[in-house]
């Protein structure tokens, strides 16, 4: 157990080092000039000396390798730097934005997990039936649906045509985050969360369904039938336990996809979460913020995978702590 944790921590450190180096290289190669992006519309009013001053203040006059080592050294001390576009420490920006995104992702994660699992179990238990065919059609259709397109569609139907849900943002206009009630927040979350859930559900459905079919064709299901168990009994007493494991693992392992999906959904709904901040940071050349988000999301996805790995050991007695990689 302790050896396992130590090994995971070493893995995480190696992962973060690789991710930082790679994203820093990519950002350095980006055609966006941070100074231009910062100045924006005032580009005509700013002379070359002023530009040089801004560049010098941000350290952009130094070679990339030196910038990277300076940034990395600060990072090790816990200093993620200052976000250029928000003029706040990177960790503060990420903290605020992450709290917003967490609501969205948690709702989408729970709903897609629950619905996907239930639909997958029932479809698999009645393989080939009408319900199974309907669910499969739905899952394949959604597997090929782009998140942003579905978001726009929902927006058109529920916000524009039916006027049931707000068109954008996390709170009603003119209300500060501190004043917003839980209901107001949930009301604004409804469509983005629905978009993410509807798209995220298909992977869980298809995996769960397949595992269910396998479980019902297994030798232990045959023996259970010989003992007088009917299909519902086999599902309840035998298959479910064997199916829940891959579903839970999948749900944790797809945190990365959920994160990616939330970027698109937040753009469509102008939801001020981490995803939107990522797009802003990228478009406006805010290197410290972008790298900070990349690192935090790497930790987030890594944690998801580790939890999945740990759950395997809890649910499946055949997997012990020895030889854990």
């Amino acid at each position, binding site marked *: 157990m302790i050896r396992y944790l130590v090994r995971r921590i070493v893995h995480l450190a190696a992962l973060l080092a690789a991710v930082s180096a790679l994203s820093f290289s990519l950002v350095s190669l980006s055609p966006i000039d941070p100074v231009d992006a910062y100045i924006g519309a005032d580009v005509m009013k700013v002379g070359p000396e002023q530009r040089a001053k801004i560049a010098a203040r941000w350290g952009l006059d130094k070679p990339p390798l030196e910038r990277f080592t300076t940034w990395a050294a600060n990072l090790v001390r816990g200093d993620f730097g200052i976000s250029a576009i928000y003029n706040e420490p990177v960790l503060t920006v990420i903290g605020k934005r992450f709290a917003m995104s967490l609501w969205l992702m948690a709702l989408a994660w729970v709903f897609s997990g629950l619905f996907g699992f239930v639909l997958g179990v029932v479809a698999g238990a009645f393989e080939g039936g009408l319900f199974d065919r309907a669910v499969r059609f739905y899952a394949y259709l959604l597997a090929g649906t782009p998140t942003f397109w579905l978001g726009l569609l929902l927006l058109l139907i529920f916000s524009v045509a039916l006027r049931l849900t707000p068109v954008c943002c996390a709170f009603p206009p003119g209300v500060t985050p501190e004043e917003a009630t839980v209901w107001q927040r949930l009301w604004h979350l409804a469509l983005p969360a629905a978009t993410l859930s509807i798209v995220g559900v298909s992977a869980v459905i298809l995996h769960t369904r397949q595992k269910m079919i396998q479980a019902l064709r297994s*030798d*232990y299901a*045959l*023996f*259970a*039938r*010989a*003992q*007088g*168990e*009917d299909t519902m*009994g086999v599902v309840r*007493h*035998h298959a479910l*336990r*064997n199916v829940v*494991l891959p579903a839970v693992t999948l749900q944790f392992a797809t945190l990365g996809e959920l994160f990616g999906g939330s970027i698109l959904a937040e753009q469509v709904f102008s939801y001020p979460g981490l995803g939107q901040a990522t797009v802003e940071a990228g478009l406006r050349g805010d290197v410290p913020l972008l790298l900070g988000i990349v690192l935090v999301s790497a930790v987030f996805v890594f944690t998801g995978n580790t939890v999945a790995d740990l759950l395997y050991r809890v*649910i*499946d*007695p*055949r997997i012990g702590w020895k030889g854990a990689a």
Partner: protein
Amino acid sequence: MLTVTDLSIRFERYDRGLTRTVLTPVHHLDLDIGPGEIVAVIGASGSGKSLLAHAVLGILPDNCRVDGEIRFKGDPLTPARQKALRGREMVLVPQSVGFLNPLKNVGAQVRRAAILGGAAGRDAPGITDAAFARYGLAPAVQALFPFQVSGGMARRVLTATATVGRADLIVADEPTTGLDQEAAQQSMAFLRSLADEGRSVMVISHDLSAVVPVADRVAVFLSGTTVEGAPAGSFNGQPEALRHPYSRDMWRALPGHGFDPGPDRAAGPTWSEGEADGCPYVRRCARADAACADTFPPKRHFGRDFVRCRHA
């Protein structure tokens, strides 16, 4: 207790496009088991013996057709009756722990078998404890998962699942496979004592030497059919006590009887898919003639014994 008459099992399979292939892994099968009797169905591995067990319990896959008659306690076993009786009056003892749920401890699985066998929920733990004690399993074994029990222990657990109800027919599929001699003998002894309580036991096996000393009767299974029904004692005497050439060749192949591998193996497999017409042993039989290749041998009775051979 159980009478199987002219049973056949057909699978329909669609190959590329609409070419339909019909497989008949079991045909012209006859078998009868009286109360308190162990009848061993002996035949080569992979010859479809397990299908017989599944047909009796009614747990064959949906794409197969069963013809012929199976009677249990005098009445025909219809699918509805099979559904009502399996787990209660007739039970399966499977081959290996592979048939237990890998994620549930064995105690819980035996308790579930007890409830399905007709016990009330609150009685199940007591019945399970008694069954574990009967087979010399420590109470702690109940908490183990299937992957944690040894081969011999697994046999006891699987046998225990069959005894928690009040089943009168026990179908044991390969009860000695993968066990050392001592464990195999014990596994058979468990079945013997169940038969001695008045239950009927069908043992499906390829392991003649382990099964014959304990069984009452033997049904010789070849290529999906029973070619001979004889008392188990016939395998202890001279080969002439057996009527079918295949049974005699099997007798000669036993370690104590000369260890003769039998007719030339180069003759090919004893069975192939399209060969339902002639005698299944025609290609290896020393006494085969033209008629054997063309017509399926009729069944001839000698009291309870029977044989399917034109020359016997």
